[in-house]
């Protein structure tokens, strides 16, 4: 069961949009980070059940952060939420272990669908 969610995005607006798309009837504990490196550190500190990860970010991009998180925890569920919808970008990040992709802007439907798939994976 998903209890802790980490949102990694350099845009505070984007994180606000993502929070608004999370189901309101579940009592998630939400953590936030503003770049890939901060996201990696937050992952190690909080061990979230699901991480939503942007790709285009300063300091460390989302593909590298995803790779580092999956190296650290092979069972990590990293859902990439990105505006960079080029096939190569998506193939790259899925190749380093991302669980799935949600295109920006997210909606309640796409986020709930992603969380349902993550729940099924966690079992």
């Amino acid at each position, binding site marked *: 069961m998903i209890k802790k969610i980490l949102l990694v995005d350099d*845009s505070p*607006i*984007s994180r606000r949009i993502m929070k608004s*798309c999370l189901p309101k009837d579940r009592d998630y504990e939400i953590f936030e980070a503003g770049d890939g490196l901060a996201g990696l550190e937050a992952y190690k500190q909080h061990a979230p059940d699901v991480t939503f990860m942007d790709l285009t970010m300063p300091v460390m991009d989302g593909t590298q952060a995803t790779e580092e998180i999956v190296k650290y925890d092979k069972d990590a569920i990293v859902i990439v939420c990105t*505006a960079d919808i*080029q096939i190569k970008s998506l193939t790259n990040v899925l190749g380093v272990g991302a669980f799935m992709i949600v295109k*920006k802007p997210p909606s309640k439907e796409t986020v709930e669908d992603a969380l349902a798939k993550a729940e099924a994976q966690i079992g």
Partner: protein
Amino acid sequence: MDNDYNGISEEEKEILQEIMNIAFGKAAADLAEVINIYVVLSVPHIEMLRAQELPEYLKRQINNYDRISIVEQNFWGDFKGSAFLVFQASAGRELIAIFGDETGPFGSESADALEKETLMEVGNILIGACVGKLAELLKDSVTYSPPRVVTENTPNDAIPASLFDPSASAIVLKTVFSFEERNVNGFLFLVTSHDSIIWLKKSLVTFMEQYE
């Protein structure tokens, strides 16, 4: 909200930045579908300026290019303004090679004409997809002028000051990009007029309301 002299708050700038991010991501994906290219994206930058500062601002941004080509396209809707896609002048030749046809996509023509038309085609895709997505997210629809290519020896000559009403304010949305494994990089600037700002502020509120 903290307003600057143009009446756009920091929060509104952040919303615009995210919308521009989504819009240019769509443009890059559209271009990658047409030609075999991967566009390396960066975080967009939003700047508020008085219109009279615009030519100087744009010159500063492109100052490290010794010779430049600009694809310019105007757009009209509630959201209206001008788009400038700025490349180093050598980009035209590189882009012809990416199209993978020695005669380019437009048949047999002189090298200069081919470069110009290739830039125009790439510009048309990037500007059209980016402005179109931006307008769609803000519930607007826009029409476009045909793209125009200007190649200049110095950046100082590239941006005609007469384009901008000196008494107006303007929003500059700037995205830096490069094409992976190709010696092509550039900027996309969207410059919107003062008239668009009031509409834009309302549209940004409406955009965020769906996420409350």
